[in-house]
């Protein structure tokens, strides 16, 4: 009964989304209809909450008469993974996607009081149309509630690799990020229809961009961390098509964050900001298509038939094609906005955007070109990590070297010499850190030492950003203090995000260049060195899990003869799906990690039982995950900036008041 209610609510949400589109489109000039459109937006969201609740209920109670549950769940699975199973399958993840889409529609209705009435109504119309497209796809092509005539007694279970806390919350974060860009997309299309793109519009898209980008950052980081400790070979980014699918909207979102500032403060680049606003969600939809169509092979892809992929491609074509056509038609009439000099904040932001767009192009071509090539001459090729390291990394390095200059430059006309002077200390620190690394850390690696220098350059640059805003060392101390207290949250957010990026660069370079790996067949009692550490396999026992059997190794990790931790890596067998997985054991040592896996059972030369143990010493690896989280935190801090929540008319007054209060 609950399942039927969920199925009904799903169809209701589709009908309400269509109503939302029609009412809101007509409501741009008639307030009464606009109000009805908003009501439909709330209704569609509530209906999907019901569907989602019904789906989770079916998973928790293991109702195997529902095809989706039978294919993806199992009674022996722990509760958390039965709940998470609701979005672990293709059908369930489409419900989550639609839930986010209608949720953001309701959010426009709720939080959009500051928007002009016609812009708000048109955005809701566009958002409703997006919702209707994806809901129609879910209802007609991937119904999560379809019943089985002949229900099995036991379900087929979820891939054990996916039974993991990080992966249970990774998709919701990722989807909120992906779909968050739909609001920006809707606001862009609505503005194109209305023909008014100004500083105020740029200000309205900023909070949504920040929220979507921040959530996407968290989602990608969680996914990367999951791959790091679940796939069991110590890598954290594989340039896998599915990772790339989430990375492209992230890069576009990062570019949009910066270009929106230029449009807001200076009225410049409105066309480009619009283009990015449309492109970010287009890449989100492209990601949804790539993951589900089966056109690309990947470790994470949902196994789905090509016909459904084709439908998703159709949705992508209609939504993005329509938006870009509208853009091409309206964009030439946009005013170019204020002029600026080659050395200025605007120029720096444009360079940032060029770099991020080129980087996104590298990711896109690396992901899609093999398909294009196959279509052209039938030749299949692969573009893997070596391609991205050669193209993507140098492009980003250009951007990272230039990054700290941006915040040092004034709008319209900056002072290159002054900026260089104010960054002198940062440059000194970076060069010093790089040289020190080259001299002290062994083995010597010039490129990696440059990476370390780059990391410190970004860290110091982020600190200098605050120093510049408070005019440190240039105005009297009490004045600096006053300025410090009155800094807008946006300034802190930007500095935090750039600092996080520096931490990430530092961690990524250090870990990649100086990790130590080891693989040894060990019998109980044997010790092997791993860098400065020593691993001893004490024993291997057998463990009975809730839905698996495991061999569990007990290893002692010593440094200088002293025990620093014990590790219990497992090799698990899941009878439900017949799969074997490795459960990594990690010893956290400050920023470093000792990472141990237990492999297959073998025998020593003497015929004693032994196990293939792999150990990795990953120096500074913690920074790779901390950095992006700090970037997301920077986004959240910026989002809490008072200026973003005020209607434009109130801006200067409110801003001044808060500054006075702070002083």
């Amino acid at each position: 009964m609950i399942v039927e209610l969920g199925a009904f609510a799903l169809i209701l949400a589709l009908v309400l989304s269509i109503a939302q589109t029609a009412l809101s489109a007509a409501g741009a000039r008639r307030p009464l209809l606009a109000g009805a459109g908003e009501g439909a937006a709330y209704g569609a969201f509530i209906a999907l909450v019901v569907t989602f609740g019904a789906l989770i209920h079916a998973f928790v109670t293991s109702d195997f008469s529902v095809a989706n549950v039978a294919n993806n769940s199992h009674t022996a699975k722990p509760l958390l993974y039965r709940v998470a199973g609701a979005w672990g399958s293709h059908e369930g993840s489409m419900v989550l996607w639609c839930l986010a889409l209608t949720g953001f529609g309701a959010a426009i209705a709720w939080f959009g009081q500051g928007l002009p009435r016609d812009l708000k109504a048109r955005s809701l119309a566009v958002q409703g149309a997006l919702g209707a497209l994806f809901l129609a796809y879910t209802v007609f092509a991937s119904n999560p509630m379809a019943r089985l005539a002949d229900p099995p007694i036991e379900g087929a279970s979820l891939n054990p690799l996916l039974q993991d806390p990080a992966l249970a919350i990774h998709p919701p974060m990722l989807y909120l990020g992906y779909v968050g860009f739909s609001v920006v997309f809707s606001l862009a299309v609505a503005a194109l229809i209305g023909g008014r793109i100004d500083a105020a519009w740029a200000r309205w898209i900023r909070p949504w961009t920040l929220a979507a980008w921040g959530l996407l950052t968290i989602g990608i980081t969680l996914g990367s961390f999951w791959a790091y400790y679940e796939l069991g070979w110590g890598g954290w980014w594989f340039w896998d098509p599915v990772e790339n699918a989430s990375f492209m909207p992230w890069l576009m979102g990062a570019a949009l964050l910066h270009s929106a500032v230029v449009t807001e403060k200076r009225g410049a680049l409105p066309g480009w900001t619009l283009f990015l606003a449309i492109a970010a969600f287009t890449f989100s939809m492209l990601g949804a298509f790539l993951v589900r169509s089966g056109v690309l092979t990947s470790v994470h892809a949902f196994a789905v038939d090509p016909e459904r992929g084709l439908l998703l491609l159709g949705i992508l074509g209609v939504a993005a094609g329509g938006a870009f056509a509208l853009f091409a038609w309206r964009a030439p009439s946009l005013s170019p906005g204020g002029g600026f000099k080659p050395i200025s904040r605007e120029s720096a932001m444009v360079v940032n955007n060029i770099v991020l767009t080129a980087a996104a192009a590298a990711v896109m071509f690396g992901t899609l070109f093999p398909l294009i090539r196959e279509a052209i001459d039938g030749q299949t090729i692969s573009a893997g990590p070596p391609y991205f390291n050669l193209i993507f990394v140098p492009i980003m390095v250009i951007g990272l070297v230039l990054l700290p200059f941006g915040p040092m430059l004034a709008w319209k006309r900056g002072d290159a010499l002054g900026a260089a002077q104010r960054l002198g200390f940062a440059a000194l620190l970076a060069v010093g850190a790089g040289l020190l690394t080259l001299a002290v850390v062994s083995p010597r690696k010039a490129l990696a030492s440059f990476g370390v220098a780059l990391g410190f350059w970004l860290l110091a640059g982020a600190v200098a950003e605050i120093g510049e805003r408070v005019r440190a060392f240039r105005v009297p101390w009490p004045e600096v203090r006053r300025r410090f207290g009155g800094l807008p949250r946006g300034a802190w957010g930007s500095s935090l995000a750039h600092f996080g990026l520096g931490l990430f660069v530092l961690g990524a370079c250090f870990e990649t260049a100086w990790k130590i790996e080891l693989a040894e067949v060990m019998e109980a009692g044997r010790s092997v060195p791993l860098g400065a550490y020593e691993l001893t396999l004490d024993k291997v026992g057998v463990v009975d899990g809730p839905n698996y059997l495991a061999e569990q190794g007990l290893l002692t990790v010593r440094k200088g003869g002293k025990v620093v931790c014990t590790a219990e890596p497992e090799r698990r067998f899941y009878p439900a799906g017949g799969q074997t997985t490795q459960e990594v054991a990690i010893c956290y040592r400050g920023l470093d990690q000792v990472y141990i896996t237990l492999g297959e059972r073998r025998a020593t030369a003497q015929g004693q039982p032994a196990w293939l143990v792999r150990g990795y010493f990953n120096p500074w690896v913690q920074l790779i995950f901390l950095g992006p989280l700090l970037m997301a935190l920077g986004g959240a801090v910026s989002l809490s900036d008072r200026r973003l929540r005020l209607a434009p008319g109130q801006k200067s007054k409110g801003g001044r008041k808060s500054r006075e209060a702070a002083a």
Partner: protein
Amino acid sequence: MKRLLIALAAFACIAAASDPSERMADPAQEARARNLFRQVRCLVCQNESIDDSTADLAHDLRQVIREQIAAGRTDAEIRAFLVARYGEFALLKPAVSAPNAALWGAPILVLLVGGGLLVLRLRQGAATAALSPDEEARLAQLTREERD
């Protein structure tokens, strides 16, 4: 001599991570082998290099590459051998060739076009009339406020 030792230490730790039952006796050769493994796709896997994969085919390919290294073939020869046998698909780094021009060129083209557009925009901006001293003063005041 010291440099050589450091280089050897680096080789040794790269070489140490492969399965001990497959490992070559010479650490320098083993390091070369692993460097090659990272550039070769496990053809039957989802999307992994043969260095990461535990599939049987990956195991076989690793063995083939090790044998060829032991036989004294160069990296380029081994890559050519793999392409002849399995096609370009086997290499994770696509060839820099005419059919792959878009793959290698597009990101660089974006950089160049973007840079060109920026220069154009700057020229346009310079061509529009300069501000009057009055406007300059007002602007200076406004930008000061903005930056606070």
